[in-house]
Every structure is written in C-alpha cells, then in structure tokens.
C-alpha cells in the first residue's frame, strides 16, 4: 500500500481527500472538519467573508489549511471573474472555485459560462476549480480552458441525494486527466466512500455534516469513509457479480478444437 498517497492541485500537495464546502457556515463545522475529517482545503464563499468583527471566518481557519474561495453569487462569467479578483484582493490566495448559477431553485451550475470564466481566470494565474454538471464535452473544454481539477456534482446541492449522476461521473474519472472532485449532494459517508471507490480524487461535502446531530462524529465518519474508499480504489476492487452467481463449469467447455 502506497503510504505517500497524495494529490496535487495548483502545484500544492494534499494528503487529505476531504474538502469542506461552504454552504452551511459555522465555526464548529470548520473546527470539526479540520480536527476530525483532517480537511486541508476549506471552501469559503467570498460573499460571506466579512461577518461580525470578532467572528471573521478567516480567523477560524488554521494557517496550514488552503482556502478555496468560491464565486457563489455570480450569474455569469463576468461576475465570477470579478468575484475571483475581489477574493485575491482580500488576501484569499490564488485558488478559486468557479460557481456560476442562473437558477435560484436548484442552484445548478451553468457549464458554458463556467468554461468561459475558467479560461479568463486561468489566464490571470488563478488555480481554477470549476463546479460543473458532469458532461464529458464540458469537462474536456474545462481541461482546455486551464482548469486545475474538475468538480462534477453528485446531485443537486443540499439535496443529500448522493450519487445521482454516478454513471456520468465515472465517465469523467475514466476520460479526464485531471483530479475529479465530487461536489454537492453527498449525503452520507457511504456515498462519499462509493465515489472514492470509483476513482474520484477527493470529495467536497458540507450539508451532510453541517446538519448532522453530532457534527464532530459525522466529520470523523466522512474522513474515515473517504479514506476507506480511496484504499479500495488503490487496492483494485474485486470482481463484482452483477447478475446471479457464475457457473462453476465453464459455459464454453464444449468447445473442442
């Protein structure tokens, strides 16, 4: 077993494959994610950076954690670029998760605007992680646009419905040569584990932990599940029998010459 199992984003090496999303925000959640799920990357909505003076979210994030500001609130590529620049000015670094939504009900990402924004931001030297609907062509365009990873959604954000787009995420894992980070909709540790078994590079989750009865314990459960899934992937999953048992006598035993 490879003990140096890391993955690289924007030239930075990460050991933990759990990324904390930003949707539901709480100081307890950040603490739990870092302590119990060993998160090394934490998403931060630029639109929520400044809060009550004595409780600035930035103060609660340990220095060894990489901030991943997102462009939530952007409705097109231009707005996403402006928010990314603001985040850089605020001192949040060069990482940016592009999120562009033109639907307030499902908050589904707009792939075509996301591709445009990715290209513009990559040219400005950002490490761009685009949140996208798992479509192979869009993913290829994102690679060409200069993305550092691709972040397909598992199911509508906040829905806790798990891997509704499983087949399509598998295609991205198989065909795209960048880390595939599964984002949005993961509701249970078992679903996170499954995505990792499929070959995802990392999992981003938020609601599932934020709304759990016991946040630290749920954070720990996610950390363990992600690690287990990763190990299963590295070990090479055993044969899965899709239908019934296999015959012990070969079906082709009658062949003679």
């Amino acid at each position, binding site marked *: 077993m490879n003990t140096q199992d890391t993955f690289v984003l924007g030239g930075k090496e990460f050991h933990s494959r759990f990324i904390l999303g930003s*949707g*539901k*925000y*709480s100081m307890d959640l950040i603490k739990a994610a870092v302590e119990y799920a060993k998160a090394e990357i934490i998403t931060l*909505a*630029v*639109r*929520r950076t*400044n*809060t*009550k*003076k004595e409780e600035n979210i930035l103060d609660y994030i340990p220095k060894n954690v990489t901030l991943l500001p997102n462009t939530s*609130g*952007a*409705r097109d590529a231009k*707005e996403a670029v*402006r*928010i990314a620049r*603001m985040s850089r000015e605020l001192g949040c670094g060069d990482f940016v998760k592009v999120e562009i*939504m*033109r*639907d*307030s*009900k*499902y*908050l589904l990402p707009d792939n075509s605007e996301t591709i445009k924004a990715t290209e513009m931001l990559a040219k400005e030297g950002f490490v761009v992680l685009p949140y996208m609907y798992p479509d192979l062509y869009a993913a290829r365009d994102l690679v060409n646009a200069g993305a550092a990873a691709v972040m397909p959604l598992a199911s509508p954000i*906040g*829905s*806790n419905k798990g891997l509704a787009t499983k087949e399509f995420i598998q295609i991205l894992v198989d065909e795209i040569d960048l880390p595939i980070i599964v984002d949005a909709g993961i509701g249970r540790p078992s679903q996170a584990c499954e995505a990792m078994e499929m070959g995802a590079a990392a999992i981003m989750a*938020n*609601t599932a932990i*934020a*709304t759990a009865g016991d946040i630290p314990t749920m954070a720990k459960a996610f950390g363990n599940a992600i690690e287990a899934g990763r190990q299963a992937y590295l070990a090479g999953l055993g044969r899965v029998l899709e239908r019934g048992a296999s015959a012990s006598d070969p079906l082709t035993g009658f062949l003679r010459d």
Partner: protein
Amino acid sequence: MSENQFFVDSDKLSEKALEKKHRLENDPSVRSNFMEYQDGMEQISSDVMEKVLSQMDAYDYSSYIEADVKRALMHETCSVEDFKALLSPAAAPYLEQMAQRAKIETSKHFGNTVYFFTPLYIANYCENYCIYCGFNCYNDIVRKQLTEEEIEHEMQVIADSGIEEILILTGESKAMSSVEYIGNACKMAKKYFKNIGLEIYPVNSDDYAYLHACGADYITVFQETYYAPKYETLHLMGHKRVFPYRFEAQERALMGGMRGVGFSALLGLADFRKDALATALHAYYLQRKYPHAEFSLSCPRLRPIVNNEKINPLDVHEKELCQILCAYRIFLPFIGITVSSREQKHFRDGIVKIAATKVSAGVSTGIGDHEEKYTGQQQNEAGDEQFEIADNRSFDQMYGDISAEGLQPVLNDYIYV
C-alpha cells in the same frame, strides 16, 4: 368573521378635508378606477397576474380533506395542488408534521443559518389613503423626512451595532421622497452595509435600474391583499390604489436588474388562505420566468397603529401563521422567509428553527430614532412609527438568543457585482 374598524377622524383635519375623507370612505363612485394605470405608470406585458389571480379565485379551501393533506406530505415535490391542501383548514391537525417536514427542507437549503437585517425608515410622508396604515395621509402623526446628514448618522449608528444588511423604507410620496433622494440614501448605505434592500413605493423599470446602479439590489413590495374587490375598499386614494401597477412591481424590478425581490400580503386584511396562496404563487410564477433571481416571502400580520390601537390580525393567530409558513417552506424550499418584529420573541425564536431564514434585529419603525433606541441618548424630534413592533430586542440580544438556540447568525451572504 368580525372586521377591524379602520376609520379614524382627526380633529386637526379641515372641514373640507374631512368631507373628502368621508366621501372616499362611503361612496365608491367617487374613487378612481383601481384597475386603471395612472399617468406615467409603466405597463409591461406579463401573464403572471392573470395566472395568480385565476388560481386564487378558483381556490376552494373547504373542499380539501385530510387525505389530500396526507398525500401532500408524502410527495417528495410539493405541487400547487399539494400546497393548496397544506393551506386548507384540513391541514390544521397536521401542523406538527408540516413543521417537521418544513424543518428538513429548511436545513437542506439553508443549514442552521439565520440571516439578520434591520429596517431604516428615512421618511414617513405619504400620499395614499390606505385605511389600515399608520402612515396614511389622513392620520395625524408626526411627519419627518431625514436629511442626508441625518440618514448618514442613522446608518453609522446602525453599522456600529454590527448590522451588515439594511432595508431602507419610505412612506409612499414621490413628491417628498423622490427617486433621487432614495438613490442618494443607497449610495450612502453602500459605505456602511454589504447588502441594501428597498421597500418604497413601486416605480418604473428604468427607476429600478437607477436605484440598482446606486447600490440597491433587493426590492420588496407588499401587495397587502391579492383579492381585488377587497383591495379596492382598503386603498381609497393615491397611486397605491392602482392594483396591477403594484402587482407588477417585482417584475419591473427584475427587468431593472435587481438581484432579488420580496413579496407579501398583509395577513388579517382579507381571506388569509387565499392571500397566502396568491403570495406564494406570485413568487412561484415569477421564479419560473426569471429563474436566476432570488425570491423571498414575508408574513406580516396587522398590528395596531398610532391613533388606532385596536387594529388586530383577526383570525390569523400564531397557529395559522405557522401553518402558512410551513406550507410556504414545503412548497418553495429554496426561498427566503423573513419574519419581522411584528411578531413576538417566542414566535420568532421558534419559527427560525422551522421555516424562517431571516429576522430583523434592533428595529425601529419610526423616523430618525435609532440613536435614542440604541444608546438611550435623547435626540431631536423623531417621526412617528408605521406600526407598533412586538419584539424590541437589540442586535446583540438577538445574536445571543439565536446562537443560544443552536443556530448560526449570518450577517452577510451577499456580494454586489
């Protein structure tokens, strides 16, 4: 059902004014046609009003039975039909189940966050005669419009308390509180706040575009009641009398580039079930037409006003209000729900755990009295309040109370681009 007695005669009105007031109140034929746009009012081509009003007219809530309510609660996605069942009297015994379902939907979309804002009234001059409102032009109250210096001072006091989202309000007088005056207030607010909403008289889409450029991004307009025949008897004079122009305000605001819009009926004025249905459908149909925009619903109940302390929300008790809010949440899980200080502490503390996502804090509905309210320092004469509030908690108290409930207060979740 009993009715509120709204008419109050001030002894300061001249005989002529009093006579006009009485004629407006008693003789419908002297009132203007409330379905006709007045000069300068933009008419947009929209089918949303037709859709909402026809659904409301056809809604017979007494026809729903418990089985409809049970079915609605079983469905993963709440249809318009399901929503109608949840608003009906048949749903009353299912209030606890509705609350539990609403809580799940709220936490899926908003986690345990509660947003804070505070209203800032900058003027209470009004040209309308809306018989239930403390600001109505015949009501004898202290009128005031803040100067730019006074507005800035109020904003400093509010910003110092920690608030980051402000809702700027005026009475409805375009002559006294012009669009430019409100625009200047927005420009000033930009210096102190992250998020600026407006609750002012409805304007045309180009004026909304101007106010957006000044820094405002949210427009709230209350239709008060969606039941047109009742609307006509409550809004006797002024531009607010024009029902369709008010109805279309949110759509014009979105056309003008605003990020989000808010809606409400004033519960207690008319049939609250029909009004609640229409309010949610107003947002629902506009969301389908403008899917990128953000939407929020409020749920004000009638409150006593200066010179008429008997005004009350009639049959809309806390249980009914809770039923409405749970139904809103289940039908529109992604939508913001605001509960103002018209409600008492125990209700607001309870409802944020179920359905509400935004509450006001450190509230005054008077004009220019924030410093007095926040610091106890006596100030110059303040203008009278629009209605009596029921929750006087300061921002810090609210912050503490909401945190103590295990919820996460959020002061800003917004970016102006």
